[in-house]
């Protein structure tokens, strides 16, 4: 009932209501902070404001203000023609969004989590990713599929999978994995402006985390390049690659390792496809040791690709075997202690780094 009344009221006016984040735009010299949630919200807001063709579609993105409040305030500001609540039919609405992109619009499709993207995966791969190639350039698909990816807390096996490796294996897609608020703003803006289909993998547990942001990041023209990793921490002894939540873990691991005299270089991948192989290899050629960290299943994962790349390009520089830290090779359990064993912890990264530096002897494999 409320929905009907609201729809009528919003039908006419497009009130410009300032998003909550505007209070941070004072351009003073004091350090500003922003949560990842606000970063994503402000990026969506600015891109929708700048380009009429951008619209948002997904379950609960409108009247509910977003299942995770990422789209808060956008329905009020842009109206129901540009912020669309869909039924719970991923295959249908993802297909509709791709069709709209064929015709020149710029859809941003929200999956409540990427687990549900599997319902729509044919449209992501066969309708979106491959179209520009199959049509020899006639049908570009400027669409963004975004939403939380990977494990949350206690949500069980069907709601915890990381899809980075699956999507990143497909030519024609771009796959981005923001970590900080700067990443979230810059990469989402880049994704929306990009003429190709982008899979934008957020993380539910990061939404509430606050990061400092410079004035440059807050400017509405801010954009990060797609395909470039960021060196979050410069180091000499071992390279740790990570993306999304694992970047935080890797940075904490680096602090612990520092106390043991190991100086770790932490690379925030930011982009899984295209993968910044040159930054990774340059780092490994400097440190000679590599740990890959990811949340997803280990077999055929992102770390496997990074390891192969380093073996192919920088074999002579490796002083130790490449170590992979990944989610456990099991469906995600519910019990808290088992979940803790299934998701990489900071100490896992620390232990692997020490192994790579020959500071500890690896345990024999258990049966």
């Amino acid at each position, binding site marked *: 009932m409320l929905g009907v009344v609201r729809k009528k009221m919003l039908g006419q006016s497009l009130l410009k209501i300032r998003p909550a984040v505007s209070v941070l735009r004072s351009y003073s010299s004091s350090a500003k902070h922003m949560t990842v949630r606000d970063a994503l919200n402000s990026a969506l807001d600015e891109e929708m404001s700048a380009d009429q063709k951008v619209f948002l579609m997904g379950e609960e993105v409108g009247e509910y203000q977003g299942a995770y409040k990422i789209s808060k305030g956008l329905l009020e500001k842009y109206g129901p023609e540009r912020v669309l609540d869909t039924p719970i039919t991923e295959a249908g609405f993802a297909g509709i969004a*791709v069709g709209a992109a064929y015709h020149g619009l710029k859809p941003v499709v929200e999956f409540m989590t990427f687990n549900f993207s599997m319902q729509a995966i044919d449209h992501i791969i066969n309708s979106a990713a491959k179209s520009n190639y199959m049509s020899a350039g006639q049908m*570009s698909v400027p669409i963004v599929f975004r939403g939380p990816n990977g494990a949350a807390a206690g949500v069980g096996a069907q709601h915890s999978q990381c899809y980075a490796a699956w999507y990143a294996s497909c030519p024609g897609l771009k796959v981005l994995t923001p970590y900080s608020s700067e990443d979230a703003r810059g990469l989402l803006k880049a994704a929306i402006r990009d003429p190709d289909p982008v899979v934008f993998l957020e993380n539910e547990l990061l939404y509430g985390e606050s990061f400092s942001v410079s004035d440059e990041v807050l400017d509405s023209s801010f954009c990060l390049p797609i395909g470039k990793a960021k060196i979050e921490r410069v180091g000499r002894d071992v390279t740790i690659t990570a993306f999304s939540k694992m970047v935080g873990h890797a940075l904490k691991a680096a602090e612990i390792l520092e106390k043991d005299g190991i100086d770790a270089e932490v690379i925030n991948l930011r982009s899984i496809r295209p993968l910044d192989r040159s930054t990774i290899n340059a780092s490994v050629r400097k440190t000679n040791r590599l740990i890959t960290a990811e949340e997803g299943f280990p077999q055929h994962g992102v770390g496997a690709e990074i390891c192969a790349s380093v073996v192919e390009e920088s074999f002579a520089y490796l002083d130790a075997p490449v170590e992979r830290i990944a989610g456990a090779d099991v469906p995600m359990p519910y019990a808290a202690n088992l979940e803790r064993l299934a998701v990489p912890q900071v100490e896992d990264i620390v232990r692997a780094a020490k192994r790579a530096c020959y500071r500890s002897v690896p345990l024999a494999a258990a049966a």
Partner: protein
Amino acid sequence: MALSYLRSSSSRSANLLRPLSSAASLRRPISTDTTPITIETSVPFTSHQCEAPSRSVETNPSELLTFFRDMALMRRMEIAADSLYKAKLIRGFCHLYDGQEAVAVGMEAAITKKDCIITAYRDHCTFVGRGGTLLEVFAELMGRQAGCSKGKGGSMHFYKKDSNFYGGHGIVGAQVPLGCGLAFAQKYSKDESVTFALYGDGAANQGQLFEALNISALWDLPAILVCENNHYGMGTAEWRAAKSPAYYKRGDYVPGLKVDGMDALAVKQACKFAKEHALKNGPIILEMDTYRYHGHSMSDPGSTYRTRDEISGVRQERDPIERVRKLILSHDLATEKELKDIEKEVRKEVDDAIAQAKESPMPEPSELFSNVYAKGLGAESFGADRKELRATLA
């Protein structure tokens, strides 16, 4: 069970020979004459949740001649593709449309190039209807540079975006939500145009179709879902695949119309009606009762699940080209010889296009890596042996 219409064919042919308007006693020039003629469709339309349009269709000599020529061209093109496939010049999949030409041709007569069409893999004739050339068709089928997708798509992936033809899709049913998305964009841009999303009786059971239809009805999208019911989903007859084969009714709350898909004028009338409806009231379903002479694809003889009698029966009683030929002759719009000359011309056009297509080279090896992205950002891509073959995507 699938072909009860055969029994009423005798009354239909009687209708054809009885022109409703006063036939001109003088022969008029055939190609540009736009004097209106009214002709009745073979059968009345059957409707669901709406009032059917009249079965009296306005046409003119020029249009009927165009129908004849276009369908003859499409027919010849598909038959030639059959030979090329058997000569191994066409590889992989090849799904032929001969028998169904009236749907492509009748639809184009009712719409403009601002309206969008999207279909599945049986797309050669639909592409030609949208303005694609024979050279683009044959070159693409043979994987050559002059193909509409520069040889990179193949039979199932013809596109012509400048005429709002969006393919050409290999995944059964996927084109329907995509088509509803095109309609969404048309409404968003306030285009006053509509989208025709074509699918087969096999695809009609796909879940995503109902998902897209639900959203289209909720959001009043100008989407026209056209079921080209040729009564067989590959080798499975419709009664074996669908509990309810009344595809025009399957939209439930969405209105539908059942149309004789072998009658180009009926198709035109239905599409005109559907376009008006969709612009005002949102989605509508058209079920085209049609038939394919070939099997599902070139690897299917098409006779293990249907009788040869059935196929030849349809050819004799309901062929869309013969129907228009009889109309033209009975209304004295052209002589038999003139029509035969058109068929000869068309045959030559097809042969010339094939010869030209054969001259077109295969794509350059560097094309392996082109168009992966619209904006490559300098990303790397690799061949089978990445130390041997790699490229930077522009």
